[in-house]
């Protein structure tokens, strides 16, 4: 692991995205539009205040999962990954470089989405906005690392897109957006405890309602971080210098 190579990789990924302004616009604008749509649907009901925070957790996670899995799959397929691994680039440099680049994008995305939700759609955040951004960022990092890991099991872009419903949708369904987690059937409740997105949504909800202290949110952040580290470790095992 080498800081220079990690930063070089992050810079390279960001330069690639800079050459693709349409992706940047979609990345930044779409979450806000969807949050606006949900706020509109639930006008004059208290529902937006309960599911709004969860939406802020969903976007960075889903979007970063998708772009991380597709871009790293592209690196595997075009041979650039093989070139990099035949050079003195560490696997950690590669993964951390990507995580750093997508983490920065996620900050931008989350900042715009949170501002829009709070100032335009009137979402009430009783706790700290900074804590909210921190959870959204942790979420994006989690999405990135899971995406890197998933890309190892896909041979084509079609397959990797299918991993989205397979790995992401169950977490959305069991995360407490549709039904609070404590009202789920017991087995599903236990399963949902083991899904990282549940903890992200819990944390965001706690910040929004200021119902728990910072230690609780910190604990949830640690759980998310543990999942992200696990995905990085598994992901780096899938980056083999020698292949058949």
């Amino acid at each position, binding site marked *: 692991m080498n800081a220079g190579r990690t930063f*070089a990789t992050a810079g390279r990924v960001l330069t690639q995205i800079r050459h693709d302004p349409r992706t940047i616009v979609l990345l930044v604008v779409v979450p806000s539009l969807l949050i606006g749509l949900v706020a509109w649907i639930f006008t004059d009901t208290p529902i937006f205040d309960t599911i709004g925070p969860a939406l802020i957790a969903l976007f960075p996670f889903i979007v970063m999962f998708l772009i991380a899995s597709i871009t790293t799959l592209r690196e595997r397929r075009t041979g650039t990954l093989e070139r990099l691994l*035949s*050079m*003195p680039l560490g696997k950690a440099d590669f993964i951390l470089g990507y995580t750093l680049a997508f983490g920065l994008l996620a900050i931008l995305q989350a900042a715009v989405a949170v501002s829009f939700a709070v100032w335009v759609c009137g979402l009430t955040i009783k706790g700290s906005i900074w804590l909210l951004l921190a959870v959204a960022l942790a979420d994006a990092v989690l999405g990135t690392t899971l995406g890197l890991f998933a890309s190892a099991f896909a041979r084509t872009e079609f397959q990797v897109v299918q991993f989205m419903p397979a790995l992401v949708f169950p977490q959305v369904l069991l995360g407490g957006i549709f039904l609070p987690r404590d009202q789920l059937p017991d087995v599903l409740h236990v399963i949902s405890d083991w899904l990282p997105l549940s903890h992200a949504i819990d944390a965001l909800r706690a910040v929004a309602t200021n119902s728990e202290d910072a230690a609780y949110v910190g604990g949830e952040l640690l759980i998310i971080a543990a999942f992200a580290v696990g995905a990085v470790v598994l992901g780096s095992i899938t980056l083999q210098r020698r292949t058949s």
Partner: protein
Amino acid sequence: MMDTTEPVISIRDLRVRRGRIAVLHGLTLSVPRGQVVGLLGPSGCGKTTLMRSIVGVQDVAGGEVTVLGGPAGSADLRHRVGYVTQAESVYDDLTVRQNLAYFCRVLGAPRSDVDRVIAQTDLGGNSGQLVNSLSGGQRSRVSLAAALLGSPELLVLDEPTVGLDPVLRVNLWKLFHELARAGTSLLVSSHVMDEATRCDRLLLMREGEILADETPDGLLAATGARDAEEAFLTLIARHPPEVSDGGNS
């Protein structure tokens, strides 16, 4: 400094399987230092697998591959061996210069290397262009330029001249010989037999075996042929292919 007479690559009894098919069955060969060595043979004969084994990105089933005095693929060799695959393996959505600057930083090579390799591969006029706007020949030169960064001691080039126009091809071979004169060792594969005469030494390969390891003149003398293509055919006639285990012949 290493002994200059010591081979830059030496391979003993290299065996590689892909799935259930044996691609290389017990190759033994050595590549001398400071020369342009051509690896010639038809598509699918195992050239790429052999090159991947030399660079150390191929899973091998057995045998020994020693490169620049160390086992192939060891960490220390990652600075000293440049590798160009048949796929361009550069980033489409970066400019030529951005690609090279990134690989340069990964290698820890001096920044001035970027301008040097752009000049060596005649890409001066395209350095600010996105790679996806370049022609196939230009893209493969970007890939070659990336391998020249950091002045590696050994260059392993998999079909670097495919799809290039004749003028560029001549220029590239001139570049290969300039590099060799400066002390770089090159292993260059091709399935175009008329490129054989441009090499200092030839390895003729067929179905995972080396048929000949000779100088171009030596090869013609040994076979009595007029050109490399004819020599290759003569050699095939002399060595009827064995039925390989798991193969479909």
